[in-house]
């Protein structure tokens, strides 16, 4: 990878860390949506359904509280709670990222209504 590209990537990462919720409005989202939380949360939908609405045996997030989701993810991360695959995923996120994901799914159903 070229040096210019590396510098650019570094710049975007620093910038990303400084993006705060509320400052950027998306057309169909409320001011509460944090763009970083949103991008982290989109990943989850591939197994848990769009907006966390599962149509299968995999648990739904829709309608669950941010506190519950944050606790569950942290327990998967620490190994306190058993799962086949979530333990492997949860380890990939910092506590702050977990909080953002939980906040996104804990409020998306309110924003939709």
């Amino acid at each position, binding site marked *: 990878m070229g040096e210019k*590209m590396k510098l650019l990537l570094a710049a975007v990462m620093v910038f990303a*860390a400084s993006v705060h919720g509320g400052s950027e409005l998306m057309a169909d989202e409320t001011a509460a949506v944090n763009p970083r939380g949103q991008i982290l949360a989109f990943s989850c939908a591939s197994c848990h359904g769009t907006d966390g609405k599962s149509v299968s045996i995999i648990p739904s997030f829709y309608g669950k509280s941010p506190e519950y989701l944050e606790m569950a993810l942290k327990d998967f991360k620490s190994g306190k709670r058993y799962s086949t695959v979530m333990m492997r*995923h949860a380890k990939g996120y910092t506590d702050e990222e977990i909080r953002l994901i939980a906040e996104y799914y804990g409020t998306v159903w309110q924003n939709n209504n």
Partner: protein
Amino acid sequence: MGQNISRRDFSKLLFTGAAGSALGVGAFSRRAGAANSRRVVVVGGGFGGASAAKYLKKLDPSLSVTLIEPKAVFYTCPFSNWVLGGLKTMQEIAQNYAVLKNRYKVVVLADTVVSVDGLKSTVKLKSGKVVGYDRLIVSPGIDFDFEAIEGYSKKVAESKMPHAYEAGPQTVLLQKQLHGMKDGGKVIICPPSNPFRCPPGPYERASLIANYLKEKKPKSKILILDAKEKFSKQGLFTKGWERLYPGMIEWRSASTGGRVLSVDSSAMSVITEFGPEKGDVINVIPPQRAGKIAFEAGLVDSSGWCPVNPISFESLIHPGIHVIGDACMAGAMPKSGFAASSQGKVTAAAIVRLFHGDVPVAPSLVNTCYSLIGPGYGVSVAGVYKLTTDGIVSIKGAGGLTPMDADDDQLSEEATFARGWYNNIAQDIWG
């Protein structure tokens, strides 16, 4: 180095020269005064393209999003091995574009893009129609290098030795051949070298064909002639084969006679460095490269794949054009439907932010590939990816394989979750 880059340096970088165009900000500011409804054209309605189209409209319903895909029904490669194993029907792996059209208001054109004009920002379709875009997303999947194996061709694939690496008629042909085979017959599977679509795919296929044979034709054998020295989830597959199908599946690495030099379709044989092998059913999976339109559009480098900026998947060759899915080079991410969909969402979010005059946020990408070894025996590999100055890398300590000592409960739970995953990802993309 740049971890400590200042905000001022960042802005300077963003709005100058190559950095600006690599982020697409250059292209954005040129069009900043354009009409409100910005146009995104998406080429290909598979895992990457359909995800991007849906999430673009979900994020910003005011966008005009056009999806161009020739197939009215898209048969997914994921779970096509389950069809071969007799565990799913073709109907159950069929997806269509009705929800994208009706609920998300994506304009779906049943057509094929034949050329891209990057200067005029237009694509030309097979029907002759020309469609303009402000941003283009290309997700055409793979193309096969039929010339790599002497004696093999598209014609041979469609008549005698299917690759079944695009789901649809190829899957049906391979299944028909398996059904027609006598008990005691030999199935040969020839996986390609890396990189290729779905690294565990050929081995899940061997497992599920074995599942079918064990039930219906138990004297039959499967021989895997591999172009590689090792393969994805090898330990887990090998253990599963010993437990469920003892003596039925033989795997030969490239250096122990697995490398295929040519095929003879009239003799139904495969010629390796160690001599010919006759088979009753022969599944040749040729080496791969980015889908044809990526070559037509000049998005490919000498590797045969498309280099992209890992923030927004914008082409490093043509600003304004994003390449996602199997066709792009996404660092540590494998070529999977899950990865393609994850990239589609990241790209959709990046494009919406660029249209709004914002810089894309750092991407977060994920992959999980389930493989079924038997009906109640599933394994998986997971990865969580982040952006570093070296591009997209897997986060250390996260992801990884089903443990080798997983008990039967876990294996059966993973098989159940594999089914759940399919239903949810299909809904997340096309539903």
